[in-house]
């Protein structure tokens, strides 16, 4: 056990579980953004022909998992675990998708950090010998998130410029214990819940940035690595505001992030799309990882990636009761071996 534990929050994975396949599905707006070429599927219609937004979100997740398995040429019965979650109450998108897939399922809730949470748990379970394949997946949908967290879609209200746009999209990664594939999950850091007292739900980036900085510092300390070890450090959905804050918080700790740091929320939309501070939601980091980033790793353009999905652990009730917004970030280290 001691051999796998590093420091207070991190673990190394000696068997280095591999990424066998990955898949992403993006909504219409995301498909018009700068990353459009990297998604496997861009839906023409965000309803996916379903009767409700919730059904559309569930379908998107189930289809993306199926696509991921098809890309690997693996059948559902060959996958030991499905680890996933989403933003909706009782994580219905993931569990309803699991109902159709019939892969043994563990539902996770880490808000928008779910992609990293599912990856690190999947990799840990495979490293521990508790399975030979695990599929890790998550999704979000603009229209389901709006009606749960904010207002009806057709309400004519304005958002402040710090607000973010929930990404419509789903991403899935198939991990395997077989060392026959080039991209490996090498170590991970489990985040702490960090709360710097932010209460503005229209500025989630500010609420999550301290958690991202905390996890990055913990990862570097636990692993004893310098920042330069990684070609790329990516946060999930801090958006423009959180991105700037993350840089500043790290600078205060003596870490100059430089060019190697990017944020999925900043990269997924272009400023011309007029979506304010950028993307958010579980789908934001999921489609960016399972499209753009893993493709870059496949091509060898990134060799060492620290993927840190960030989550704001609030509910509409806690916000109404005046509670501040706790943030979390989990880090997963991926390497081309």
């Amino acid at each position, binding site marked *: 056990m001691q051999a796998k534990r590093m420091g207070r929050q991190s673990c190394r994975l000696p068997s280095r579980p591999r990424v066998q396949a990955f898949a992403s599905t993006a909504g219409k707006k995301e498909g018009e953004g700068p990353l459009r070429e990297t998604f496997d599927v861009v839906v023409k219609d965000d309803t996916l022909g379903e*009767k*409700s937004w919730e059904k559309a979100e569930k379908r998107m997740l189930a289809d993306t998992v199926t696509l991921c398995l098809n890309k690997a040429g693996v059948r559902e019965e060959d996958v030991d675990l499905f680890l996933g979650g989403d933003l909706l109450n009782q994580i219905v998108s993931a569990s309803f998708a699991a109902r159709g897939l019939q892969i043994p399922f563990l539902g996770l809730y880490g808000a928008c950090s779910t992609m990293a949470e599912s990856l690190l748990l999947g990799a840990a379970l495979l490293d521990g010998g508790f399975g030979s394949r695990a599929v890790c997946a998550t999704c979000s949908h603009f229209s389901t998130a709006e*009606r749960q967290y904010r*207002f*009806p*879609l*057709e*309400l*004519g*209200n*304005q958002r*402040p*410029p*710090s607000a973010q746009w929930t990404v419509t999209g789903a991403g899935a990664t198939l991990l395997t214990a077989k060392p026959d594939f080039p991209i490996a999950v090498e170590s991970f850091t489990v985040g702490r819940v960090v709360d*710097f*007292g*932010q209460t503005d739900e229209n*500025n989630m980036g*500010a609420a999550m940035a*301290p958690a991202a900085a905390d996890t990055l510092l913990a990862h570097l300390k636990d692993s004893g690595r310098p920042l330069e070890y990684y070609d790329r450090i990516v946060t999930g959905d801090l958006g*423009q*505001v959180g991105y*700037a*804050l993350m840089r*500043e918080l790290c600078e205060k700790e003596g870490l100059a992030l430089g060019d190697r740091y990017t944020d999925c929320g900043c990269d997924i939309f272009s400023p011309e799309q007029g979506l304010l*501070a950028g993307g958010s939601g579980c789908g934001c980091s999921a489609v960016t990882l399972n499209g753009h980033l893993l493709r870059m790793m496949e091509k060898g353009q990134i060799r060492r990636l620290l993927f840190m999905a960030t989550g704001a652990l609030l509910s509409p009730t806690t916000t109404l009761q005046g509670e501040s917004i706790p943030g979390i970030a989990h880090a997963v280290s991926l390497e081309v071996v």
Partner: protein
Amino acid sequence: MNGSKQKSAYDRMVKRVSPKSEKPKSLCKAFFVGGLICAIGQGLKDIGVYALGLDLEDASLFCSFCLIFLSALLTGLGVYDKIGKFAGAGSIVPITGFANSIVSPAMEFKREGFVTGVGAKMFQVAGPVLVYGITSSVLAGVLAHILSLLGR
């Protein structure tokens, strides 16, 4: 670690980094769109008085009906939220904004059924306006009555 000191330092950092709303621009947009809606309302009222021969009170009602209908129609067509995104308070404050705040949840929650969805959620946004609007009008009425008794 000094928690509260760290938090207030962070608050200052957030304030500095977060983009501000462009107030003069937003105010101008709200003023002109709000004004335009009111001008349309006045036009409708004039139609009521001069073309339909209604008295002033009925013409005002006619004007409100028309504006509510237009707002509901534009909400249904998916246009009113775009006007609102542009105009902000300019399209929220007039009666059209009130109609939009009732029609939009009614549309949104239709899938949860007509009773538990539309019926229960229709006043999700407008409810507080109704509660406090009616309450304050009752209080104002009571106050006016007492004042009129005193003034006699």
